[in-house]
C-alpha cells in the first residue's frame, strides 16, 4: 500500500475514532453544541440563545425557554474542545416583579443575570460587597448579564440590585 493510501486510511480511521470519542466523552467541537446537549441531557429547553459571552475558561450562554431564563456555562477543554460547565437550567421568571434575576459564583467566576419585566426599566445597576458598582444599559432583548471575577482580598459578593427608568428613578430595588 502506498504511503498516500496509508495516510488516507489513517484519516478515515481517525475520523471514526474522533466521532466515537467526542460522543462518549461529552466533548464538542463548538460551544453551542455543548450547550444544546447539556440542556437536552438535563431535560431542559431548548432555549433561545440571546447572548453569548466569554469568560476565563469558557462561555456564558444567556437564553430564554418558555417562562425560564438561563445562563448556561460551557467550558473550554484541551484548548479547542468544549464541554458541559454548570448551571444549564434556568429560573422561573416572576412577571409580577419589574426585574427578576439570579446570581451564582463558580470557581471565582461570578454571574448575575435576569430579565426586565417592566418596560420602564432602562438601566440596571448592581453593587458588590466591596462597593464596586456595575451598570448595564444595553440589554439583550429584555435580558441582562453581569459577569466578574473575584480576588481573595476583597468581598466580591453581590449585595444590591436596582432598576432605573429613563429619568434615573428607581423602579426596582432588592438587597441580597
Amino acid at each position, binding site marked *: 500500500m502506498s*504511503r*498516500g493510501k*496509508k*495516510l488516507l486510511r*489513517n*484519516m478515515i*480511521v*481517525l475520523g471514526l*475514532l*474522533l466521532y*466515537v*470519542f467526542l*460522543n*462518549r*466523552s*461529552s466533548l464538542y467541537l463548538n460551544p453551542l453544541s455543548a450547550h444544546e*446537549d*447539556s440542556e*437536552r*441531557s*438535563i*431535560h*431542559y*429547553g431548548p432555549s433561545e440563545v440571546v447572548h453569548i459571552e466569554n469568560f476565563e475558561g469558557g462561555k456564558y450562554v444567556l437564553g430564554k*425557554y*418558555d417562562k*425560564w431564563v438561563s445562563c448556561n456555562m460551557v467550558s473550554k477543554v484541551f484548548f479547542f474542545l468544549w464541554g*458541559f460547565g454548570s448551571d*444549564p*437550567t434556568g429560573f422561573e421568571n416572576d412577571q409580577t416583579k419589574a426585574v427578576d434575576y439570579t446570581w451564582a459564583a463558580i470557581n471565582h467566576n461570578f454571574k448575575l443575570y435576569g430579565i426586565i419585566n417592566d418596560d420602564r426599566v432602562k438601566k440596571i445597576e448592581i453593587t458588590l460587597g466591596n462597593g464596586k458598582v456595575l451598570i448595564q444599559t444595553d440589554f439583550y432583548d429584555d435580558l441582562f448579564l453581569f459577569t466578574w471575577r473575584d480576588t481573595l482580598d476583597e468581598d466580591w459578593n453581590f449585595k444590591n440590585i436596582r432598576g432605573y427608568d429613563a429619568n434615573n428613578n428607581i423602579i426596582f430595588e432588592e438587597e441580597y
Partner: protein
Amino acid sequence: MLMPKKERFLEEVLSYIKFPFDRENIKTELESHIVEKIDDYMEQGYDVEKAEELAINDIGDAKEIGMELNKEHNALLGWLWKITNGMVVLFIIGNLFFVGVPFFITFFSSSPINDIDKSSIVYQMDIDEQVKLDNTVIHFTNIVYQDNGELNIFFEHYDTKLWGTGWSLGTIGEITDNLGNTYRARSACSAGIKTKCIHSLDNFSKKADTLIISYDSYNRKYKVEISLQVGENDE
C-alpha cells in the same frame, strides 16, 4: 569487509533524504544493490577495491540519486503518515477508556435487586413500564416490598443515541401513592451505558394499592401508575 567508498556513497545519498524514518530502508536497499554489483565484479576477477569503485560508478551520481529518492519519499507525506499513526494509537487508547469502560460496567454490573435480602421480601413484582424524557429512556422493571415497610423501585435508563452522554438523571419525578402520601426516595445507581438504579421508599403505606410516579419539570411530563399487591402485604 571494509568498503569505505560504499559507506561514503551511501552517506551522501542519505544526506538528501529529509524524512528520517525512511533512511534505514533506503540504505538497506541501496546497499544490497551495491553489494550485488561488487560480487558480480569480483566474480569477473576484480579485486575488492576496484569492484567497489566500479559498482558505485554503475549506480550513478550520489546527489542525483539522493534527490530523486527524496522526491519519492515525500517528507511531508511521511510526517503526516507518522503523526496520524500516533494519533490513531492515542484515540484507540482514549476510546478504550471512554467506550470500553462503560460497556464493561454495563455488561458486568449486576442488578441492585440482587442486593436485597431475599428473606425480607414480602412480595416482588416484575413490571414493564417505559417512559421517555428527551433522549433518555427510563424502564421500570421491578417493585420489591420488604417486611420493614421499605418499597424499592428498580429501573434502568439509557440514552437512545447509545453512545450519548450527559448529565446524570437527577430525578424520576414525584413519588406518591393512591392515598395521597408523598415519599422521598433514597437512590443508588450503577454507571455504564445502561444505568441500573434502585429507589427506596421508607415506611411505604401498607394500605396503598397504587404507586404513582409523576414527572413534571420544564414542560416534560409523564405519569406511571403501578398497581401493588396490597392484599399480600396488608396484615
